[in-house]
């Protein structure tokens, strides 16, 4: 069987700063993964729907507006509701240190803050896929 790692990269909420999301999408592509990029200004509903339809292994969310404490857990909740609780969630963007434990509790395996090298994200994914 020829199985590829499939990852959805999406931006929930209203900020349009998609450089980080595109940078990560590109890095994951170059690491041999299939990346579904959904673009900016997505509702949590739309992201969860797309993740289920695309049968991805991972969902990566990028957010710079400060609404992560609301939107990230909402994506996690909807994914679970739609039967995608086995999909691994990670996030990135301008996220204060003190918010990270709360997001992890909400189901996010990792949060990458500004300055993280792309290789760290690739390593995280490759490690996670081993445990599946």
């Amino acid at each position, binding site marked *: *069987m*020829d*199985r*590829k790692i*499939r990852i959805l990269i999406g931006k929930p909420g209203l900020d349009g700063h998609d450089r980080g999301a595109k940078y990560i*999408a*590109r890095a*994951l*592509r*170059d*690491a*041999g*993964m*299939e*990346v*579904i*990029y*959904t*673009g900016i*200004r*997505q*509702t949590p*509903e*739309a*992201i969860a*729907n*797309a993740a*289920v*339809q*695309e*049968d991805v292994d991972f969902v990566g969310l990028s957010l710079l507006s400060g609404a992560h404490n609301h939107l990230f857990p909402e994506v996690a909740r909807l994914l679970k509701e*739609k*039967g*995608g609780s086995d999909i691994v969630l990670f996030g990135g963007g301008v996220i204060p240190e003190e918010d990270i434990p709360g997001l992890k509790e909400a189901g996010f395996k990792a949060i990458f803050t500004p300055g993280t090298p792309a290789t760290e994200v690739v390593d995280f994914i490759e490690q996670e896929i081993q445990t599946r």
Partner: protein
Amino acid sequence: MLSSKADDFAHKVRSCDQRGLARVLSMVENGHPLAPSILHSLYNPERSGLTIGITGPPGAGKSTLTNRLIMHYRRHGSKVGVIAVDPSSPFSGGALLGDRVRMQDHASDPEVFIRSMANRGHLGGLSGTTRDALEVLAAASFDPVLVETMGVGQAEVEIASLADITLLLLVPGLGDEVQTMKAGIMEIGDIIVLNKADRAGMEQLEMSVNASLELIPDQDDRPQVIRCSAQTGEGVEKLTDAIVSCASSGTWGKAIAQKRTTLILNGIIREKGRELARKLILDRYGSVEEAIESILEGKTTPYRIGEMLSGFLKNKRENKNEC
């Protein structure tokens, strides 16, 4: 045991369980051992669901038009399936599948099922398993299923054999009229869509496309040419009317079942042929690399190996005659 599992999956597809359907699409795409049994159980060449291929050069507006067509069919209450193919990297094998960006209007609509596929090295504008993915979506009673190819050049014509109706998108500014006279992609559209109708050069494009089509002797064989702007939606109604008239022509029903069956069987002959040849080489040499090594050592040539494969098939035939 195996087949009851396959039946379970087939049932999930038919009842349009989103998670199950998505899983089956992955199984088909990855060549899962259960995939052939699931496809067998879903196979129905006389199904009513229509499949529409959308092809054209990169940036011609395929995703934007797909988005418009989804909008149109949703307004009419249809469940719409979409397969959007983008290229895999020839180096890393990875892919960036970005067609959903233009289809965001429908992202939260559960009656619209969009699946992105990487071509995984397959040539022809599609992936090797697009054909089967399309059957799966049709079996889940999505009607129509839209198949958007990668951006194509002059000869990626596979979509025409795969979809019931093929739309070829052209835009102004991509070359002179000799381009519209060439063989290949220009011959495959059931409907030719001249997109970006507001752009300069539209008149000229329309003239050269029409001039090239006039050379087709039988008027009924000439594809319709429709101007539209996928961006604004202008001309899209005319396009969907043309799709309806295409799909209701006299010989449609029988012809389409035959076309669907031919396509699937030809695909399977191609794949199994490749597998069989590979297996024979492995039996004889251990691996393809070792076969290459033998060739480099001067023990044989690629043509001799080819002869060996033909010889094997011939023996098979003779053995059968003896039986």
